[in-house]
């Protein structure tokens, strides 16, 4: 029953995909060459056949070619403006990874402390509430000025956007560990460190992982925008560069890649979440 349902769902997904591609294909079919004035013919001849191509929205076949071209050789490096897709994605992932790890190093211990002390929770709450809604990109000028490096600024932006969901979820998870479990630890005279790692951490882990998953989602959204802004390398820069080249098939290809990698990251954290979730 369950298996056949999965197959059915997959078939419907495939059907929808084909329908969308088909509609796209029909919508971008080359139009019957309209009556063009003499001057335009001359102009077209001067510009070569390329002018016609670049003006319309690319049909799926053309985008498909871009997919094949980039995926068949993902690691080439022809200088700063022409790198393989894997290299670009790698740069983005590296920035996200570094910023994310920094955020973990700050948010988890700080969240632990805040979660255990209602006083600190209250004292820090106004700061968190004000800092949390700031768009991470708004930090960019400050980051560029103080850090003086576009790459490091990108990592900082990832850090600042990942830190809040993790911090809030860790604090919440730690603060809502069941009284009973803490009482068990107390009656057993468990040392604070053992209590933190063997009772509070596992008890709060599902909530913490939820925070990390949200953070990763946001970080992946933000890295594209950040890289569009600072340039250099990365998938966001790639999108912007291809826009400047007016190479829409490449842009569509890059958008798809962003989606696929984002899905992969989310699935990874979903897996981790399942690993630490306990049934009561």
């Amino acid at each position, binding site marked *: 029953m369950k298996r056949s349902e999965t197959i059915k769902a997959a078939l419907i997904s495939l059907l929808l995909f084909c329908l969308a591609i088909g509609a796209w294909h029909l919508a971008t079919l080359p139009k019957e060459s309209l009556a063009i004035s003499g001057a335009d013919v001359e102009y077209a001849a001067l510009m070569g056949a390329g002018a016609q191509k670049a003006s319309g929205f690319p049909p799926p076949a053309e985008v498909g070619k871009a997919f094949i071209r980039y995926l068949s050789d993902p690691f080439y490096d022809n200088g700063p403006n022409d790198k393989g897709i894997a290299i670009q994605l790698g740069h983005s992932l590296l920035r996200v990874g570094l910023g994310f790890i920094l955020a973990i190093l700050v948010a988890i211990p700080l969240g632990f402390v805040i979660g255990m002390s209602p006083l600190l929770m209250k004292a820090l709450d106004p700061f968190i509430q004000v800092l949390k809604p700031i768009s991470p990109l708004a930090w960019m000028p400050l980051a560029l000025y103080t850090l003086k490096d576009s790459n490091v600024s990108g990592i900082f932006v990832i850090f600042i956007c990942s830190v809040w969901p993790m911090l809030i979820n860790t604090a919440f998870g730690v603060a809502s560990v*069941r009284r*009973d*479990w803490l*009482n*068990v630890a*107390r*009656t*057993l*005279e*468990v040392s604070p460190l*053992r209590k933190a790692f*063997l*009772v509070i951490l*596992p*008890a709060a*882990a599902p909530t913490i992982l939820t925070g990390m998953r949200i953070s990763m989602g946001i970080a992946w959204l933000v890295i594209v925008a950040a890289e569009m802004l600072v340039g250099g390398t990365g998938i966001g820069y790639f999108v912007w560069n291809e826009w400047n080249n007016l190479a829409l098939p490449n842009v569509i290809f890059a958008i798809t890649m962003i989606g696929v990698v984002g899905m992969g990251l989310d699935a990874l954290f979903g897996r981790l979440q399942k690993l*630490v979730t*306990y*049934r*009561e």
Partner: protein
Amino acid sequence: MSTHFLYIEALKKVYPSSNNTPNSPVFEDIHFHIEKGEFVCIIGHSGCGKTTILNVVAGLEEASAGYVLMDGREIKGPSLDRGVVFQSHALMPWMSVLGNVAFAVRSKWPAWTKSQVVAHCTQYLEMVGLGDAVLKKPAELSGGMKQRVGIARAFAIQPKMLLLDEPFGALDALTRGTIQDELRKIVQATHQTIFMITHDVDEAILLADKIVLMSNGPHAKIAEIVEVTMARNRIRAEIHHDPQYYRIRNHLVDFLVNRSKSYAGAESGAAHDPKNPPVVRPGLEGDNNPVLQPPTENSVPPLKQVVNQ
């Protein structure tokens, strides 16, 4: 100063109030003691502060006044000397059954090797009949089995005293009976000192040596201490053949239904001295005819009365 094992002196608890008028104390003037190897149950209506008293003895809560001495030393904070079985079993769901008990055992004996810990835990899990469920997670166990793990965990650290907070409250009658029997056997074998909260009069009679009766809160006090004078090796299936059983049971039910209110607050009888609550032995009252006889119609308490109240 005292020769008793556990000594509770002038205990009082007032919870902080949310408005300006001070709360009246949940209980006050609580005096009683427990000897080594004794099984003491405490019975009283909800809100009389039984759980608070147990938590104070456990060291999890602080009393507003008074103190508790164990082995001549004042109890300040929780300790491995006192094992607690929680009402909600309080097992860590991410650890296996063995892991839960091992967590406690490692806390008591940090220097033990892994095999030592496992052997010790297995021994106690086998004692409660869970020898073949050691690797299961608590979520895979029934309510009764979870509570058994809780009991094994408390016994495994070999505390000087065991505190049980309504351990069988959430279990069905059949499971409760089985675990009560197991607990009774274990206690007889280990001579563990136990302080237990219960709502179940029959459970108290089956297990306890002394039953502490508390009047209703606020201003709850110890009204009486009932000594269970029946032989210690009571058997659940035969206990109702003992004429003492009904006398004790009637006494307890009568207290809970009719008399527990009258002790509260200022109305308490002038003759009642909370420092020395009367010790009664209803089981021996009017025992002119010690011949064992099955309960007759008029010796059976009218149970309907209890239900109606």
